[in-house]
């Protein structure tokens, strides 16, 4: 339904015109129009960042940084690639900057939960922490692809359009990344 279009990022397909081009052009003339681009990509960028950074507060800061940087540098976006590709490159750089900082461990569990909830939450957080740790051991390029797929929820052809590869090649690379990740994250229920 067309009504969803305003909140959802449009599908990006290789070799097609960037669906964000008109909004980007309009936002260059009138910066407030950037908010429409923000509305399109907020969920996806936040998801991308969450897959690569464990600490919730840092995720929020990084997401904010991505969009404030994108707005500030919109004039430098030449439109050679897609806006989405450019935006996720900013996200990638912002995540890299965080990873270069001295590590701060996330806070322990919040108080106020009943005991079964606490135990369940503890296990879920442990599992998430292990997976995050495993993701962080992958190469940055692999993390980037993984986060676009499972964090931002992009389809293979959308990722292909961003990284300049065909969807089949992206699928194969993703399969290899998952295999490697599975070796590093040997989780059994």
């Amino acid at each position: 339904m067309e009504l969803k279009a305003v909140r959802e990022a449009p599908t990006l397909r290789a070799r097609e015109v960037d669906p964000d081009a008109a909004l980007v052009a309009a936002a260059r003339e009138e910066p407030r129009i950037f908010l429409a681009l923000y509305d399109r990509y907020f969920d996806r960028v936040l998801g991308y960042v969450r897959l690569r950074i464990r600490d919730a507060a840092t995720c929020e800061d990084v997401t904010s940084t991505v969009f404030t940087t994108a707005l500030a540098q919109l004039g430098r976006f030449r439109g050679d690639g897609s806006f989405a590709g450019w935006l996720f490159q900013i996200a990638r750089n912002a995540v890299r900057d965080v990873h270069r900082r001295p590590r701060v461990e996330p806070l322990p569990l919040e108080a106020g939960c009943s005991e079964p909830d606490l135990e369940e939450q503890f296990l879920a957080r442990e599992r998430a922490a292990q997976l995050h740790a495993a993701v962080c051991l992958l190469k940055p390029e692999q993390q980037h692809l993984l986060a676009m797929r499972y964090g931002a929820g992009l389809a293979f052809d959308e990722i292909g359009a961003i990284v300049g590869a065909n969807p089949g090649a992206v699928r194969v690379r993703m399969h290899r990344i998952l295999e490697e990740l599975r070796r590093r994250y040997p989780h059994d229920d």
Partner: protein
Amino acid sequence: MTTEELERDLERLAEPREADERLRLAIRARLGEQTLVRPRRRLKPRLGFGWAAVAAAATTAAIVVLGWPGGSAAPSAADAAIIRHALQAVTLPANSIVHVKEIGVQDGTPVAAEWWQQMSPPHALRMIKGPVGRQEETADDATTSFQYDAATNTVVETPASTAPALVDPIAGVREQLARGDAQVAGTATIDGKTMYKIELPTGVVAYFDTTDYRPMYLDNPQRDGSVVRTRVVTYEELPMTPDNAKLLSIPTQHPDARVLTQSAPTK
């Protein structure tokens, strides 16, 4: 662990959280301030820019750049897009029937209204409204007004001199959204669900689903200063099929009722 399980765990890392909406609004506000700091350039008129080929949201953005109808304070592109999509969601095709059901509490009494109305002239309608348990059912097909009395299973028919106006509960919202006077007042959470909040010049506040822009709630200011909130349980378009047309008629809905015909009221 299977690949599917691993994929599920990965998706879980990134899944939306309750506080996301607050974060979205906070960053949005920060960006809004940032856009004000940047020098604004005048938009040169551009003919043949190719706007027609772009997505609806981009078109909305262009409309905002070039001027917002009916007001000096133009809404942001995103707000304009919300209003545009809300308007689309409440605008139904001419040859259809709008079906609305809303419920609420007025003066401590549960009230409900259900409405079927033809979107194009003669705007034939049937409605059931009033306090729950004491509702009145009326209809009007532009030539005859009908009133159904459930207690006696009687239909009273009265000749009508004028066709009814389009008066479904969303009609006023529709009209004011189209006029460009409505303003997005952020989002509000009602019963745990976050919705777009749109203020109308009449004082009515309408709340729309953030996904498909369906109207969800209406805050109706009363003369005594109170506000009656109604929940829009149903808002749907029904095609004008013979079966659906029966929904507009009291005699068809109550075929066994006794019919009393009254003369037209004298003025």
